[in-house]
Each structure stands twice: as structure tokens, then as C-alpha cells.
């Protein structure tokens, strides 16, 4: 059975792994300058959440968490579509994806 295989590893390890992925994502968003890479870091954060939800869901033998993962995937796909469209729109206008160049609006 799948749950038994998953449960051979203690739950804490899943939490550590997901948290590590999540923090890598946060650091990526805060430090990188390229819009696409920031975007990838956000996706990494979302996938860390998916991993965490699946781990909890399997440990509790409760399908709710896995259903939520499907919702997150679908919504993330919609977000990717909109996000890439915005990035393409910006690239057409300034021929660059460096967020450091965005200073038309003053802080």
C-alpha cells in the first residue's frame, strides 16, 4: 500500500523538505532580478506547498489535501498563463526582463 511506504519516513522529514523548498523559493523571489526566474521561484513555493499537502494527506489517510493539490495545480496553470502574457507584453515594450529597470513609477 502506498500510505505504508510513505509512512516509513517520519512526517517531520517531509515538513523539513517542503520548508526548505519553500524558503529556497522565497530567497529566489527576493534576490533574483530576472522576471522569469522570480516567477519560477514562485512556482517552486507552490510546489513545496503541494508536497506538504500530499504528505499530510497521506499520513492522515484523508483525501481532502490531495483534492486541494489539484485545485492548486489548476489555479497555478491559470496564473502562469496570465503571468507569461504580462511578461511578454513587457518584453515587447522594453526588450528586457530585468525588474531593476522598472522605475517608471518612482518609489
Amino acid at each position, binding site marked *: 500500500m502506498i500510505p505504508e511506504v510513505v509512512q516509513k519516513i517520519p512526517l517531520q522529514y517531509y*515538513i523539513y523538505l*517542503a520548508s526548505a523548498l*519553500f524558503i529556497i*523559493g*522565497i530567497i529566489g*523571489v527576493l534576490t533574483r532580478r530576472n*522576471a522569469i526566474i*522570480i*516567477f519560477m521561484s*514562485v512556482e517552486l*513555493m*507552490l510546489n*513545496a*506547498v503541494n508536497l*506538504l*499537502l500530499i504528505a*499530510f*494527506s497521506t499520513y*492522515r489517510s*484523508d483525501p*481532502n*489535501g490531495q*483534492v*486541494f493539490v489539484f*485545485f*492548486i495545480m489548476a*489555479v497555478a496553470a*491559470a*496564473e502562469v498563463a*496570465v*503571468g507569461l502574457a*504580462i*511578461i511578454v*507584453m*513587457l518584453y515587447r*515594450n*522594453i526588450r528586457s526582463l530585468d*525588474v531593476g529597470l*522598472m522605475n*517608471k*513609477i518612482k*518609489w
Partner: protein
Amino acid sequence: MLSIISLSLFGILNLFLGFLKSRLILLPATLVFLFVALALLTQEWNQQALYFSDMLRVNNLFVSFSVIVLLTTVLVVGISRNFGDDIEYTHPAEYYSIILFSVTGALMMIGFENLIMLFIGVEILSVAMYVLTGTDKRNLRSNEAALKYFLMGSFATGILLFGLAMIYGATGSFKLGAIATYVQTATQYRSVSPLLYIGLLLLFFGMLFKVSVAPFHFWTPDVYEGAPTIFTAYMSTVVKTAGFAALYKLASIAFASSYGFWAQTLAVLAVLTLLIGNITAAYQISFKRMMAYSSISHAGYLLLAVVAKVPSSQSAILFYSLAYSLATISAFGVLIAVSERKPYEGNPDERYDAFNGLAKTNPLLAFIMTVSMLSLAGIPLTAGFWGKFFIFSAAVQANLTALLVIAVLMSCVGIYYYFRVIIAMYLKPSDNEGVIVSSGFKLTLLFTTVLTLLFGLFPDLVNRFF
């Protein structure tokens, strides 16, 4: 519940209306759709029901906040006169559809009973907002605002989701009721899982990000300034109303028992928001940017009512959102009219100076703006005064004296920057020519002004429902 279904269907219908000649009836059709949804919604007053496998709760809280959201949307659509002008580059059908879809998201956020529903509602609203922010495709400011909003917004979504996952790990459920039961028993026996505390904080941070509470406010001024003004008006009203309804539900239903844990944090953030919002707003030279900071400061007042968590908090948040939405729409409506008469550095003139001498050329618009500014500043005889009054009395009931003192002081700072517009309109000389506005536009703004004054004179019109 029917209103949510009908709005999503109307959104799709609206896309088909974008073909050929039927494009001309888009604006009236959207208004009709919104009124149908409003009518369906009022049918559910005083009903208690759960829909969609217990994921959506219809009760008076849902109906009342949804009515505010729909009313705001009607008014924003009412002043959106320029959508269809330039047929080649603009896509009016898509704008109206996205507005209808985003209202659906807002309604789901208000009525959620399951955290999955909250997440979907937040995302429908946010993704629609990213698109609307970037609708001015050839304007670099709009592009930049859209990208900033998108990157920061999806970052916030990630944080919110991690919080949800942690809460699920601690409680084993996404249902508000089950979470509340877990929190209550666990607090009683002092066996609260640390996962719950981490999750709760991250979930609140994600939500506070969406309603732009300091220190998560840094995207707000840029996005509000860069977005087309009509969508700034929409963003600053609908997102805030729905966001605070959701936040209030989380705080007062799901996590009511761990009040001692989150109240301190939120109180500190409320103080920070009030200070940063009001003091920075006083230094702005652009009116639109001032309105962005003012919306941050209003988030601070609303957060005060959430922190108070007394039974009257709900009606205080409701009345405040209503007063704030009405005044904000009038202010942005007048700004749209005024900013277009003389460009400044290639963009619409959104500085205070654009308002110079408006009282001479357009006394009506100047009056509408004055009422809206008085209401935002919280001067008596306007709805804004009663909004602040109810929030402050909720804070008194909860013994939040220190917070209250800061809030009152900061609303005095608010008077300074709101009155700068009034001074510019009535006292500063100018050679600007008058603004010509259509009658529908004028009618919408008059309606918001009349409502602001009416609720200022008779706050019981709203409050007797609670």
C-alpha cells in the same frame, strides 16, 4: 449562491456580446447582469444555508458584504465610459467579463466555509486584477504595475498557501467549523501544535498582503499609480471589502479561541499601517499616489475592528467599507475627468495641481470631490464619520485604548492631506478650462455623493439591519 452561478454565466455571455454590433450594448448589459445578481442576492437575506458540499455559507454576513461589492461594481461600471472608444486596441467585452468574474471571486471569498473556497476566491479575484492592471498595453507605467502586482501577488499567494497547508497539517481539515473546534479544544488542553501557529501567521500575512496592510503594503502605491484610474478605483474598493470580510471571518470564526496569539501581532501591524499610510500620504505630490497611501491607512482602521473582535466589529467593518467605497469611487471618478484635460509629461495629470480652480469651472465636480474628501477624512455629516465612529467604539469596547489614541491622532493627519485637494479646488487660481463630462458619468458620481451624505445623516439606514 444563485448570484455566484449567475455572475459566472453572465461573464461568459458578456464575452459573446463582444462580437459585431452587440458590442454597443455591453455597458447596459453588464449593468443589467449586475442588477440581476443583486436581486438574486437580496432573495437570500435572513436565510441560513450551506452550498456546494458545505463549502459556501449563505447568511446575512455574506449577503450584506456581497451587496456592497456588487454596488461598488455597478458604480465603477457606471463611470467606465472610455472602455470602448478605441476599438482596435481595447477589448471592452473582455474587460467587462473580467470584472464580472472578479466579482464572482470576491463573493466566494466572502462566503467561504472551507479554506479551499477561500483560496479559489482569492485567486479568481487576484488573477483578474493582474489582467485589469495591465490593460493599458502600450503604457509602460501600466505594464510595470501589472508585472509588480503579478509577482508580488503570486508571492503572497504562495505564503497564504503554505499557511493553509500547515493549518491542514495541524487540524486535519479545511472546514472552518472543524478548525474552530480543534483550536478551541487544543487551546483548552494546552496542546496546540506549533504547525497551527506557523500556519495561522502565514495565512494572515498572505491575506494582509492582499488588503495592503503595512509592512506588506510596498506594492500598493506603485500598482495603484500605474493602473488605469478606473481599475484603481475598482481595486481599492472591491478587493479591500472582500479581503476584510474574509479576514474577519477567519479571525472571528476559525481562530477565535487563539485570540491571545494573533491579536498582539495584528495590533502592532494596525499601528504600523496607520502610521506609514497617513504620514507618507501627507508627503505625496500626486493625488493618485496619495489615494494609494490613504487606502493603506484605511486598511489600518479596518484592521483595528478585526483586532477588537467584539460582536459590533462586523457591522463596523461593513459600514466602514461601504463609506470608504462610496467616497473612493467619487474621488477617482472626479480624478478621471480632471486628469484628462491636460497631460503632464506624457501621462494624464494626476497631481494636486490638476485640481486648481476646479470650483470655478466645474462647481458640481468640485462639490462631489469635497464631499468625498470630507467623508474619507471622517468629518461629521458624512458616512465616513460614522464609519470611523463605529470602528472606534468597537475598539473602546475591546479596551484597545493605546491603539485608539494612535488611530484618532492619525485621522487628524488625514485631514491635512485630504484638505489639500479642497484648497486646490476652491482657493488656487488657474487658467485650466472646464471639463466636459457625460450625463451618465455625472449621475453615477451624484449618486455616490448623495449616498455618502444620506448615510452620514441617517446611519441607521444601514445599521438597523444588524
